[in-house]
């Protein structure tokens, strides 16, 4: 019988280490087969990927810049998962969160930088959280399914942004739907600039200080989920809603709380993309990062440490994948999309496929011992 519950008598590491590793290995194995199928050498591809992701300073900068996005969206999906909710709307929440970041940078740029940074972070959380609040409220109070509502809200976010960019926020006299460039005082410092302050030379890359904020968010998320009353409520509702009610927890309030935090985390993607890299508000800056968050959370088993590792892996795949497209014309960024799909398939949908096989050796030994 395969199912989510651990079988008694099987050591814990089988579930925490062995199962995720085997699932990931299966995803990579099938990815390798796809590479073979289109007539390329998988080992060569891995070599180029690794070199492209970590081989030189600029590459490392880019890898960590992508990692920043994936930490935010991965944490967002994970917080909702802990509450038993599938937040498929990270993409839309990140989009609207970015809108908040852009508006703050455009209209509050007279503030001293620390205050501006605080308002930008608050705006990202507020806008992203608000975009998650409506689906959460509808799920909690009106019983509409969060998966469907958040999908619809992704599309609603996309059309809303097109409307705002084309009709309202566009810089007058310009053709492409973009706002004016932010005042240089409202740019988040790049990593190479920040490192230069303390005398370390580093190649130019889009990596910026939001990476630190992503790491701080990991710690905050860990503290929230496992060391606060609210985090306990979130896990209780996710684990067994009926029992949570019996314990005096209101599922409706908890669902709304978890989703708002989830949306806020997704919204922080805008801090990296808009304040850190683009320095203007534009269309489609979320570029599917919200969906990668699903793979990151599944792979990282909804734990900040796992999410950081999974985000780094996808960061490396994205940057290495860009390098790969230069070297091997057949292997475009879409190969990374294939790998992403396979990771979601094996680490998510087929999570328990290998469970009986991994448990078998331990169960057999126990039976022998009992006899």
């Amino acid at each position: 019988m395969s199912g989510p519950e651990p079988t008694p008598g099987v050591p814990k590491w089988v579930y925490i280490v062995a199962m995720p590793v085997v699932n990931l290995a299966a995803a990579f194995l099938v990815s390798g087969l796809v590479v073979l199928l289109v007539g390329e050498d998988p080992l060569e591809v891995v070599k180029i990927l690794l070199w492209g992701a970590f081989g030189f300073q600029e590459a490392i900068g880019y890898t960590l810049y992508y990692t920043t996005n994936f930490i935010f969206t991965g944490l967002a999906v994970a917080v909702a998962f802990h509450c038993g909710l599938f937040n498929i709307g990270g993409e839309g929440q990140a989009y609207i969160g970015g809108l908040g970041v852009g508006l703050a940078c455009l209209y509050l740029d007279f503030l001293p930088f620390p205050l501006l940074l605080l308002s930008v972070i608050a705006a990202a959380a507020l806008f992203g959280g608000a975009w998650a609040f409506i689906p959460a409220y509808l799920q909690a109070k009106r019983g509409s399914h969060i998966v469907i509502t958040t999908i619809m809200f992704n599309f609603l976010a996309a059309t809303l942004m097109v409307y705002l960019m084309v009709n309202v926020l566009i810089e007058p006299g310009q053709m492409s739907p973009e706002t004016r460039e932010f005042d240089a005082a409202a740019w988040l410092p790049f990593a190479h600039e920040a490192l230069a302050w303390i005398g370390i030379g580093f190649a130019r890359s889009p990596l910026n200080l939001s990476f630190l904020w992503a790491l701080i968010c990991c710690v905050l998320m860990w503290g929230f989920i496992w060391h606060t009353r609210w985090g306990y409520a979130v896990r209780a509702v996710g684990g067994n809603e009926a029992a949570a009610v019996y314990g005096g927890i209101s599922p409706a309030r908890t669902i709304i709380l978890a989703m708002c935090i989830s949306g806020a985390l997704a919204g922080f993607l805008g801090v990296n993309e808009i304040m850190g890299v683009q320095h203007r508000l534009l269309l489609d800056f979320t570029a599917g990062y919200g969906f990668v968050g699903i793979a990151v959370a599944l792979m990282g088993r909804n734990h900040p440490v796992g999410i950081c590792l999974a985000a780094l892996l996808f960061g490396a795949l994205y940057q290495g994948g860009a390098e790969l497209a230069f070297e091997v014309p057949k292997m475009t960024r879409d190969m990374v999309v294939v790998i992403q799909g396979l990771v979601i398939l094996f680490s998510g949908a087929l999570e328990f496929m290998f469970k009986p096989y991994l448990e078998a050796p331990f169960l057999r030994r126990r039976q022998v011992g009992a006899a």
Partner: protein
Amino acid sequence: MEAFGLFILILDATLRVSTPLMLAALAGLFSERSGIVDIGLEGKMLGAAFAAAAAAYVTGSPIVGLAAGVAASMLLALLHGFACITHNGNQVVSGVAVNILAAGLSVILGIAWFAQGGQTPQLPEAARFTPLVWPGADLVAGVPLLGPIYSELISGHNLIVYLAVLAVPATWWVLYRTRFGLRLRAVGESPEAVDTAGISVTWLRYRAVLCCGFLCGLAGTYLSVAHNAAFIKDMSAGKGFIALAALIFGKWRPVPVMGACLLFGFLDAVAVRLQGVELPGIGQIPVQFIQALPYLLTVILLAGFIGKAVAPRAIGVPYLKEH
């Protein structure tokens, strides 16, 4: 007369836009009525669109293209079934995987096979489903009122449009008038009861998922071999999700689902026409607002503000047989 001509043109466009929606929404209906959530309609359509265009280009036959499209979509449906039915995996996660996998694979294979940046080469007329002109369409075109209705609206569509229209009564008949349909509806409401009656829940649900794959295959083939003349990266462009919205809007019943698809298709057709037009008393309606309406209406419906959409009771729950 001018207004009437325009009206007919908009209805004609509505039918063409609604065709893939109807096929995909009916596909989702088979799956979801059996208790399997399917947010992978989009991916199956995309996979089918690619396979159909590739096969039609290589063989020069739209029928072979159709077969390939249906086969690709059914394979993806089987993958979804394997994860959700055999391994009790999370159905939403599996659907996401199917969508992403199809988006990536269609481009990677397209580049490998055709080296045109992920597109398939342009299909010649002979390799496509071309409009079928009904007998006498040209003769009656000049007749007032009925003429344009016959020659524009009824005649002159390709095979898959007619298949989509026929798929609605066919789905209704299968669902409500056959033993398979009765069991399919039962397994989506109460799999325990079906199991107790000695009918395999697994096999029933696999058949439902395969029906879903078949119809999604038609929808995808329509995109690349009938409506357009090539596969283009991400050409399903969210149609699978609009179909999902229509499925919910139609409350998981064939005829209302068709109505929802026609409504969403109509909105799409009107949005193009209304671009930059001043409406008396209202002013300009932003195109984005009309484009957002299907999603907005679905959210409002789901929230129970216009009627109540009640999903099949056992939807999304893997069936664990008690030992």
